[in-house]
């Protein structure tokens, strides 16, 4: 058996435990451990991506219990891609946080690793209850991280975040109970097979369970009407943490895609809740436009950009029934990385402006603001979707594969709103200034991690064709759930 599949879960778990043992005062050692773990994860993710690229779906039976009975980890193209994305995002985020932010509270590095463990586990698992457990792992680590660094704003936003997610977990458990009660299994593949055979009351109950799952995943993905926690929580979190959180909404989206592709692409439950998902996603997109325009702080603005990307993605999923998934995944990669970079950049700007921080009002000029304004310009172009950067490629590909007038209009309006909001923010931050700034100069490591993340956008634009082919191949594999089913269930038989 190939043991590498469990490495993305084990590496951060071991590093996290090691970090708990290490002496708190030795910051350099802790940073080194954390960064080494992230680098190792990146290497393993590349290796796994290479392995999954061959088209084979690898199944790892934990404890060597065969599929429907034991818990399995499954590596297909989608999970490999998501694990790789996590690793690519985590390294700069941690590098940025390792420049002082990590000292503001205890156990930052351990929590960061446990969060990565939860995210990777959620991407790899092939079992619904295990998905719940990994969700809880990533959530409890994220509660700690969201509150890292103290301050009343954080506590207030954190309380809402925790309470909402606890209610979400309760709903998740109810849905899982119904799934087990009706199908008698929690393995995703086995569930997909057994769900097709249900009739009568059991089928109705399963419908309830699945709609509840949509609600839970919608909460994690921050869809209307469950996104109100996100802007406050993300905008008040420490920069490195906010950048990592850019992947968290995508975990919800991933879970939707996975369950949808396996069990609900066709058969008796085809298209269940799809109409609602479509309209809710469009409303999310529309409200995110208002949020972006009305934001009083740059952090809030970027948070609404995250919400906007979620609306864009879920609408593509709900409309295209997996047809539009290839471009959607490209857009997912782009938006996660750029929003992560923007969160880091926001913090750099806030530091440079001293007391005014990232509030969009007249304030002191940033010392040597030229570099930051250039970075902001690049990031804004990328995230709004203007040529020549990756956002443009992603949006064009999405528009071509979702030929629906409502979607076109909303997506283009969203782009316009983003453009207006970001240009207004940029001119306020960099041009409408009073006197010399007194803020801090950005450290080299800070700049390095921001530039690293933002550079990925032109790279993604240059390699757009191979990347789009790659994501299309991922979508193609998802369109054939039989491959997944036979890999998981056929392996043991």
């Amino acid at each position, binding site marked *: 058996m190939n043991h590498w599949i469990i490495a993305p879960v084990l590496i951060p778990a071991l590093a996290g435990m090691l970090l708990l043992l290490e002496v708190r005062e030795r910051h350099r050692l802790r940073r080194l451990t954390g960064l080494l773990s992230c680098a190792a994860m990146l290497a393993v993710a590349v290796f796994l991506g290479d392995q999954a690229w061959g088209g084979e779906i690898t199944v790892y039976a934990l404890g060597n219990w065969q599929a429907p009975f034991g818990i399995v980890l499954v590596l297909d193209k989608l999970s490999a891609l998501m694990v790789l994305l996590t690793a690519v995002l985590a390294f700069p985020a941690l590098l940025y946080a390792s420049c002082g932010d990590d000292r503001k509270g205890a156990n930052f590095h351990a929590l960061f690793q446990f969060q990565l463990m939860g995210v990777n586990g959620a991407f790899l698992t092939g079992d619904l*209850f295990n998905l719940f*457990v990994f969700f*809880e792992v990533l959530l*409890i680590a994220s*509660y700690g991280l969201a*509150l890292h660094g*103290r*301050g*009343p704003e954080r*506590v*207030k936003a*954190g*309380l*809402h975040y*925790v*309470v909402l997610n*606890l*209610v979400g*977990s*309760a709903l998740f*458990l*109810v849905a*899982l*109970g*119904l799934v*087990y*009660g009706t199908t008698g299994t*929690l393995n995703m593949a086995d569930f997909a097979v057994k769900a097709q055979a249900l009739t009568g009351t059991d089928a109705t109950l399963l419908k309830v369970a699945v709609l509840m799952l949509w609600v839970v995943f919608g909460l994690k993905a921050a869809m209307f009407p469950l996104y109100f926690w996100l802007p406050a929580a993300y905008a008040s979190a420490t920069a490195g943490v906010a950048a990592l959180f850019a992947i968290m909404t995508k975990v919800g989206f991933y879970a939707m895609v996975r369950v949808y592709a396996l069990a609900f692409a066709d058969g008796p439950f085809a298209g269940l809740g799809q109409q609602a998902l479509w309209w809710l996603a469009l409303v999310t997109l529309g409200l995110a436009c208002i949020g972006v325009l009305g934001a009083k702080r740059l952090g809030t603005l970027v948070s609404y950009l995250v919400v906007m990307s979620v609306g864009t993605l879920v609408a593509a999923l709900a409309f295209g029934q997996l047809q539009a998934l290839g471009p959607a995944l490209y857009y997912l990669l782009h938006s996660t990385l750029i929003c992560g970079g923007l969160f880091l950049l926001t913090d750099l700007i806030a530091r440079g402006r001293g007391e005014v921080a990232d509030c969009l009002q007249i304030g002191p000029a940033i010392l040597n603001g030229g570099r930051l304004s250039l970075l902001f310009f690049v990031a804004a172009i990328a995230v709004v979707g203007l040529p020549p950067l990756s956002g443009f490629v992603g949006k064009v590909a999405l528009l071509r594969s979702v030929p629906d007038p409502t979607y076109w209009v909303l997506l283009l309006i969203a782009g316009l709103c983003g453009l207006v909001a970001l240009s207004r923010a940029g001119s306020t931050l960099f041009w409408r200034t009073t006197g010399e700034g007194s803020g801090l100069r950005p450290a080299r490591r800070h700049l390095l991690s921001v530039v690293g993340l933002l550079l990925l956008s032109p790279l993604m634009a240059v390699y757009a064709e191979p990347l789009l082919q790659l994501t299309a191949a991922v979508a193609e594999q998802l369109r054939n759930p039989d491959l997944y089913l036979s890999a998981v269930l056929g392996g043991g038989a």
Partner: protein
Amino acid sequence: MELLVAIIIGVLVASGVYLCLRARTFPVVMGLTLLSYGVNVFLFAMGGLKINQVAVVGMSPDPTDPLPQALVLTAIVIGFAMTAFLVVLALRSQGELHNDHVDGKPDDGGRS
């Protein structure tokens, strides 16, 4: 017995939801606890209700399903940890915001 369990779950969840919608942190914590109790009982019932049967195959003619018990155990542990965390968070919010309103608003004389 099914009716009894269903009523218990209903009462627990209803009171939990009601308390969750309160404006003070303490009732919210209580509400989440009750909600998770209700969910745990629900999860337990999903394996089918049987009286006086062991959860081991071969020990009795009609063994009860052991999996929901394992699931409930996991859910209880996680729920317990989350509640503990929430209590600490509520205390810190009380300390930093100087009131126990969930939105951190100044006290309005206990009307909410």
